[in-house]
Structure formats: structure tokens, C-alpha cells
């Protein structure tokens, strides 16, 4: 077994069956083969509608694959996510598989600092330690300290996105999935994210991401994975 291999997609396919839209079948992914190794950063490229976000969601087990296999190295063994139980998926998400989407899911009344700290608490960190680490990350991402105790519902798009990145990166996870996490950030903050990703890779994480911005892509990608829409839109 290749000890570096973290994620192994084999003949992966995804179609949506829309029962109330004339039983439409939407074929989005087919025959995807991709291997992701520790320390690399593979960037999904291709036009809008190519299925890039769908692919990340299938790997995160947010969408269920229609065909093929998604094997994740979790806890020193292979976990087939396509057939894993909900409890196995939740455990993989807690400890192995991170996902940062473009938008922060705001939880009413929960301050930014606690939103960021939560993934560390879920793996058993001390609350004080988790909050301190959350503060360090927010600080690096230039989220002003006066915002930390406020729920991010009223933050700007860029501020919410940085809270989301901090939350997504705070727990050291071996596989990171990133869906345009820097879309509304300025150049300075994009540079911080690139630096954080570089550190995660040095620490051994494998990164699979979507980055629209070419400058960002050049900075973080070790390899591109090109994708094309299966059906004309």
C-alpha cells in the first residue's frame, strides 16, 4: 500500500434524479479517477457547471455517489465512503476530512470565536486552548478582535469567509476539500490563506480545491485536475 495515498476515486459517477421536474436525470460526473497524496494540492479546473463543487461534495459525503468508489484513508485503514455508515462518515469528518465551502453557515447567537473553535472541541481539545488557537487563526486572517465575540451573521462577505476558513483549518485534518474559499478576499488575505495551506501541506495534509483566481491557483497548486461538463448546459 502506498502510504502517501490519502484519497482514491475510482470510476466515480454522480447523477441527480429530479422526481418533480419531469423525472429529469442530470448526469454531472462520470468515470472520475483521481488519486490524492499527502502533501500535494490538486486544483480542480474547468468551466462553471463542470461538476467541480459536486465532486467535492461527493467526497465529503454530502452528496451520495451514483456509481464508483471513494476510498479515504482514515485512522490507518481504507474507508469506502460510498457505503460508509452515517457514524463512520461523521467520524471521518471529525478527524480526517475537512471541507471549506464558499459560504459560512451562520449559527444564530454563536460568536465567531466559538464557531472557529468548535472543530477542535469536537476532537477533544480543552476549551481554553481551542479558543486561543481560534484567536490566533482569526488574527492571522485579519479578522479584527472586536468582532470575535459577535455572531458573524452581520459580518461582511469577506469577514464571514475568513471565519469559515479559520473554522475549516483549525483542526489538523489529513485531507482538506476547499470550494472557492477565497472568492471574496483581497490579495493580502488570499496570501494568508495560501500560506496557511502551505503549512497544512508541510504538516502532511493533502489538499483538493477549487480556486477561480489564477494567481491563487498558481500559488497553491502542485497539479491541476481538468474537468468538463458532461452534457451541454
Amino acid at each position, binding site marked *: 500500500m502506498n502510504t502517501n495515498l490519502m484519497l482514491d476515486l475510482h470510476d466515480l459517477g454522480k447523477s441527480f434524479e429530479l422526481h418533480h421536474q419531469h423525472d429529469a436525470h442530470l448526469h454531472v460526473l462520470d468515470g472520475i479517477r483521481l488519486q490524492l497524496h499527502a502533501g500535494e494540492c490538486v486544483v480542480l479546473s474547468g468551466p462553471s457547471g463542470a461538476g467541480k463543487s459536486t465532486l467535492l461534495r461527493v467526497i465529503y459525503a454530502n452528496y451520495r455517489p451514483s456509481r464508483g468508489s471513494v476510498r479515504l484513508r482514515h485512522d490507518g485503514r481504507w474507508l469506502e465512503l460510498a457505503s460508509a455508515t*452515517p457514524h463512520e462518515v461523521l467520524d471521518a469528518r471529525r478527524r480526517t476530512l475537512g471541507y471549506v465551502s464558499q459560504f459560512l453557515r451562520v449559527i444564530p447567537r454563536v460568536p465567531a470565536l466559538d464557531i472557529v473553535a468548535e472543530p477542535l472541541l469536537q476532537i477533544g481539545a480543552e476549551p481554553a486552548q481551542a479558543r486561543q488557537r481560534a484567536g490566533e487563526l482569526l488574527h492571522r486572517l485579519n479578522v479584527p478582535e472586536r468582532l470575535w465575540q459577535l455572531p458573524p451573521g452581520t459580518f461582511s462577505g469577506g469577514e464571514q469567509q475568513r471565519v469559515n476558513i479559520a473554522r475549516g483549518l483549525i483542526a489538523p485534518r489529513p485531507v482538506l476539500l476547499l470550494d472557492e474559499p477565497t472568492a471574496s478576499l483581497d490579495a493580502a488575505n488570499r496570501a494568508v490563506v495560501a500560506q496557511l495551506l502551505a503549512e497544512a501541506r508541510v504538516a502532511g495534509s493533502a489538499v483538493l480545491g477549487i480556486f477561480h483566481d489564477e494567481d491563487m491557483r498558481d500559488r497553491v497548486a502542485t497539479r491541476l485536475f481538468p474537468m468538463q461538463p458532461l452534457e451541454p448546459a
Partner: protein
Amino acid sequence: MSALLQVRGLSRHYGRRIGCEDVSFELHPGELLCIVGESGSGKSTLLNTVAAQLAPSAGSVRYRQRDGEWLELGQLSEADRRRLAREEWGFVTQNPRDGLRLNVSAGANVAERLMALGVRHYGQLRSIARGWLERVEIDPARIDDAPTGFSGGMQQRLQIARTLVTQPRLVFMDEPTAGLDVSVQARILDLLRRLVNELGLAAVMVTHDLAVARLLAARTMVMQHGRVVETGLTDQILDDPQHPYTQLLVSSVLTT
């Protein structure tokens, strides 16, 4: 990790009418499971049958009690079932008036279930009750007031305190936020979310509100006509619904 609750082929009929039919699931410690579906789909029937408040027409419910022993609920005496409800379980009803004792003080409402467990010391009961009122954001100065004078949201928070004060291992909740104003709901949901995390509660919660499931539950079961039509991780069910009924449920939420 081993389950806390095992439900197998559970059915409950009302005469020839189906309440719930052939439902199976497991619940693990520390896990909150939501049951969603429209009115009349059998959610309350299922919850009450699992909680041994209704007798099943078929199937079984097994519960692993505090000492690790598995109990077959259908084979327990009424006294044993009452003991479980008192010592290991909690039940939060939709209408707080059904779960509270309206003619006694807020403090007594919270203390009552503790007294049933043998806590007798007045000062201790009072200080625990005060602490729980604070935890559910009720001014402890109102400890001697009867809940009849409380708003609906306050009554529901009091019922939550009354239920959780005994640190139950398993909590059943039937639409605990239905019928309340949206802002009041948000406060109760936030409270439940925090308490569930802090106490590591296992809970089965009925709701017709998918946003509630998204916020609180890692897993969700969808019911239609008394049957479970889809079950899985809450985010899977909401973002990639498979069953036609779930797709309808999710899309009607998105358009309202």
C-alpha cells in the same frame, strides 16, 4: 461505539389506521436524531411508541440502561418503565403546559424530578433549580412564580430545565419549538444546541421544520404515511434528497 437504543420493525396502529409502520433505527450516545415529515405522517406516534408511552402493535424497542444492561421495553413491567422515565429519560412536549405543573412555582417544577430521584435537601434543591433557571435564561428572581404567568417561550425553557435537571441519558422531544414566534424559537434552539453539546445528550426529536434538523441533528429520518422513506446524514438529506417525497419537502422549504 455501541448503540443506546435499538428500534426494530416498530409499528403502531389505531384500529385499522396506521400510526407508524415497520420503523427501524439505532441511536448512539451523544447523538441527536430528527424525525421530519408533514403533519399526520406518524412522527408523534413513533416517538411515543419508542418512549413506551404507547404500546406497539408489532416490533421491538431495546434500550441499554446506565449499568450497560439491554432492556426489552415491551417486556418491562409498568413500574420498571416508570423508573426508566424517571431516572434515565426525559420527555419534552410540544405544549409546555402538558409537561409542566402549572399550579406550582418554577423552582418546584425544576426540583420535582430531582426529588423523585431522592434528593431531599431543600437548600440544595433550591440552588440547583436556581442554576437551571439561569441556564435556560430565566431570571432566578422568578423562582417562586408559577409558570402560568410566563410567556410561551419561557414556559418551554422551563420545561427544558425541568426535563434536563436530572441529566437524563435519553431525551424525547416532540416539536419543542412549534407554535412559538420565530425569534423565540431561535433562542430555544440555541439553548438546546448548547445543552445537547454540554451534556452529551442523546435525543430523538420530532419536527416538521427542516431548518431545525439542519441546526441540531447529525442524522435525520423522513416519514410519510407512517413509514420512514429516507434516512441518513441530515446534510445529505437536505442537499441531495433521493426520495420523491423528500425532494418535495426540501423544495417547498426553499421556496417559502
